[in-house]
């Protein structure tokens, strides 16, 4: 029993690391379908990876803290200390800001304090936004995050049955994407919190262009804001599933290929 569990851990590790053969991958998918604890392990693992990506988003750049100047008399480069060396950067924060920023900060603080006082008096909490609340993800944000990791999927389905089963397990309805010469389904990723806890993302390629589809249950009547930035969003409902297609194409490419899957495929 312990050996079997160890074996499953090794399979999941290899799966996450992209070291599984096709046969091992199929075996792991079978195991996850048969055993809820394996499915839970796999899902926890995928979500932990997605969480690491969120928590350790690389900064846009880490610039060199010093300006390196070539002195006309010196044979090599000379080093000039930064105006605000990193260790003193926090202390230097106030020094580098213009006065209008202090005024704006003071106004915000004053408004906040006033709101708090009013709020305490009224016994409600409508004036003070929660400080722990983080801005929710947007379609554009998810698209940008996927782009940053080169649209590499978190996992893939190897055939239509797996594809339909995954949708059915997650949303209660199955669907498949018909094959087309100009469209390649790359795989799946997560977009936790965009529409709900189960939001799934399909990554596709068409003529070298990346296409992202968000999937939700149509009965939930949730919607996502168009991404903007020259990206277009199209939507379609198929078999109780609501698909949003986001790409820079004027017309939907993948949506017309989506077909309902027979219920048998969606079963456990």
């Amino acid at each position, binding site marked *: 029993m312990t050996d079997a569990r160890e074996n499953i*851990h*090794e399979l*999941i*590790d290899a799966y*996450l*690391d992209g070291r599984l053969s096709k046969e091992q991958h199929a075996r792991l998918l079978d195991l996850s379908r048969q055993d*809820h604890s394996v*499915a*839970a*392990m*796999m*899902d*926890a*693992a*995928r*979500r*932990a*990876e997605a*969480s*690491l*990506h*969120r*928590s*350790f*988003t*690389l*900064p846009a*750049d*880490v*610039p*060199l*803290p*010093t300006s*390196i*100047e*070539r002195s006309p008399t010196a044979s*090599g*480069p000379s*080093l000039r*200390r*930064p105006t605000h*060396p*990193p*260790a003193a*950067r926090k202390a230097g924060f106030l020094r580098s800001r213009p006065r209008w920023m202090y005024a704006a900060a003071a106004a915000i603080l004053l408004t906040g304090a006033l709101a708090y006082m009013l709020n305490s008096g009224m016994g409600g909490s409508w004036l003070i936004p929660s400080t*722990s609340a*983080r801005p929710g*993800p947007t379609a554009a944000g998810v698209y940008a995050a996927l782009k940053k*990791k080169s649209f*590499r999927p978190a996992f893939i389905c190897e055939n239509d049955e797996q594809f339909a089963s995954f949708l059915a*397990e997650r949303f209660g309805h199955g669907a498949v994407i018909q094959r087309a010469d100009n469209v390649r389904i790359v795989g799946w990723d997560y977009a*936790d*919190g965009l529409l709900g*806890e*189960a939001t799934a993302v399909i990554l596709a390629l068409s003529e070298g262009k990346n296409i992202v589809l968000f999937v939700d249950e149509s009965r939930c009547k949730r919607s996502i804001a168009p991404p903007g930035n020259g990206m277009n969003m199209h939507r379609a409902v198929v078999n109780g599933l609501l698909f949003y297609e986001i790409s820079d194409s004027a017309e939907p490419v993948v949506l017309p290929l989506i077909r309902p899957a027979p219920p048998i495929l969606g079963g456990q």
Partner: protein
Amino acid sequence: MASEDIQQPNTPSMAGTSGASGQRLSADDFARRFRDSWRVLWCIAAGELGDRSGAEDIVQQAAVVALERLDDFDPSSNFLAWMAQIVRFTAKNEVQKVRRRRTSAADPVAIDASRSDDREHHDHRHAMPISRAGNLLDDQAVFDDHVLTALRSLDVVARSCLLLRVVLDSPYKEISLVLGIPQGTAMSHVDRARRALREHLLARQDRPAGGASR
């Protein structure tokens, strides 16, 4: 990701000896190599700190140190490995500094109060995490906090290995080079770290909501 080929590093010296080849890296070369390497260096710093905040400062501090020690570096050896070691030293120093700053007198009343706070905090967290199917039940921020807690419980090297592998998709050869460990060890660290994270998350899921203190 650094574009240069992975070579064996020279032994980075913090003591001010000359580079083995007697050549000196030019400022332009330093800037170019730094631009190629900062992502890996940032991940190493984040791994050492267990957090992304502060990683950028560490990389910049390390760059200042490296610039001051440029004579130590042999341009024919591996820049990334040299910088990685400086980043690790810088981050370790920072962690020690923070640890020293946190040392304070032990007031029994304060300790008791903080324990009580911790318990409430944990009770709230246990009530949340993920469903049997691994789905997120509460907000993503709390889930991310769980993952960070699990990550911080890992050994520093394991944490750095995991971040380099997951966040940057670094090859094991590179992880081995920048952390100064064998490739097989890097791979074991990544596997064990991944396992520890999911076991931590699943263990939280199995705990009864409301916690044991009620």
